[in-house]
């Protein structure tokens, strides 16, 4: 699903070049649940920006769902993003839209017919337990509720890849566990889930693959538990199918 092939990223700053990712290679398979763990400044944000095609590598290649992101045209980027659902730490809900409209928006951008929106949005909101609050504006919801609306928006169009950027960063510890369980439940029905976090304790509660980043490099990769304790796969498989 996600392949980083010797990815290096420098940012131009007033002090010269700042190295954000240093020859990073990894392979996240279809249907995996992966934690990407790292402190602030480790390179997590750049890692995410690469997947969202907000940035392109200085060197190396990034593939998502079989698409070559380095050579992708700008006008094709929206179509890449429609294949994924993203949950941000700060929720990023449109403040003037109700919970329903925020979730529906992710479907409207893909030209999904209104009849289908009317069925799937309430379903997505009921999955996160917010069907009753569909007509509330974001400011009328608690932090945890806003994060669940963001999750409903991320899954409503049935993406194959869910990216969660510090999804528990702005909510209570009890709600954090609930959020992670929701993400696990979503992963169980198929989509690949990548959770980027700095919360070591949270990661330890789940028996999942953990990729740890420091100074733009992968310093450890536990590999998938299903792979019976083998080291994480960082080699680049051949063929386009392997990318999917």
């Amino acid at each position: 699903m996600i392949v980083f092939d010797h990815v290096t990223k420098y940012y131009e700053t007033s002090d010269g070049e700042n190295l954000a990712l240093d020859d990073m290679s990894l392979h996240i398979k279809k249907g995996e649940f992966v934690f990407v763990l790292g402190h602030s400044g480790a390179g997590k944000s750049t890692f995410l920006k690469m997947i969202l095609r907000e940035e392109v590598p200085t060197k190396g290649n990034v593939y998502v769902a079989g698409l070559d992101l380095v050579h992708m045209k700008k006008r094709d980027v929206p179509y890449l993003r429609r294949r994924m659902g993203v949950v941000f730490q700060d929720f990023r809900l449109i403040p003037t839209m109700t919970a329903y409209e925020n979730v529906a928006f992710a479907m409207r951008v893909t030209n999904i017919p209104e009849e289908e929106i009317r069925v799937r949005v309430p379903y997505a909101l009921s999955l996160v337990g917010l069907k009753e609050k569909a007509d509330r504006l974001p400011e009328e919801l608690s932090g945890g509720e806003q994060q669940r609306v963001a999750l409903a928006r991320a899954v409503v169009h049935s993406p194959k890849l869910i990216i969660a950027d510090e999804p528990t960063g702005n909510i209570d510890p009890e709600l954090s566990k609930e959020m992670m369980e929701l993400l696990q439940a979503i992963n169980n029905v198929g989509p690949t889930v990548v959770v980027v976090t700095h919360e070591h304790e949270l990661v330890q509660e789940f028996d999942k693959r953990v990729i740890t980043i420091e100074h733009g490099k992968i310093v450890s990769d536990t590999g998938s538990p299903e792979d019976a304790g083998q080291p994480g796969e960082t080699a680049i498989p051949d063929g386009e199918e392997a990318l999917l």
Partner: protein
Amino acid sequence: MKWSSFKYLVRQGIHSLGTHSMMTFASIGVLTVCLVLTGIAYLFSVNVDSLIDYLGSQNETVVYLSPDLNEEQTAAVDTAIRSISGVSGVEYVSKEDVLSTYKGYMSEQYADLWDAFDNDNPFKANYRVTVKELDDIQRISDELSAIEGVDSVSAPLAMSNVFVQVQDVVTYAGYGLVAVLAVVAVVVISNTIRITVFARRREINIMKYVGATNGFIRLPFFVEGMAAGLISAFIASVIVLGGYWVLTYYSDLVPGFWRSLLSESVVPVTDVWYKVVPAFAAFSVLMGGVGSLVSIRRHLDV
């Protein structure tokens, strides 16, 4: 883009006017003020132009006829004068009329002095000619002189030159003022729109992350900008033309000399509204719509 998506985005644009009421108010307010100022400058310039036109048209060119013309020849001169292009008024004054005019200038006790001329009238019959455009007065004067049976032509050439120059200055100053105001309006409005779009950059950013294409994001902003523009054009038209109508309606209350001057030269609202309203609408829709598109561009690169 599907028709249903298009309708949704247009609705979103209109809806945004209400949900971002403070920013809408600021944009419409700024745009309206700019339009009103530009409109006032335009109407002022048009009226000064009309006033000068009116004053200029009061200057008559006098065409003196040869004393020995018979009725038939006089009629031929009459036809020739009326056939000159640019002539707006022709009035025949016989030599008897001239004499009686002069008699009227004298007080009664001396009026008898003119009686001596009753049988030997020294004056010449003449035509009083007014012209439409003062610029044409030299050409018309030359054409009048060339008519057979015309003795001489007395045209207020120096006076008309002054009027033409004043009118040119006023016209260019008017256009210049309108142009300067329009440029100021473009700068102020584009800044206002830039601020409103900047305030919503996060919203645009979110749209990009859920996979909205640039066209999908632009359309509601474009519709919103155009709608705000149309509302501004409507308000500005009501203020400028309504105010102007009230002024022209009450110009009758102005005392004495100014009343007769204004009543002849004020351009009626019926002669300007069809220029002002489309100009306001076109300018504000262009500013609102295109301004939004230009301002949004830098936020789309995510």
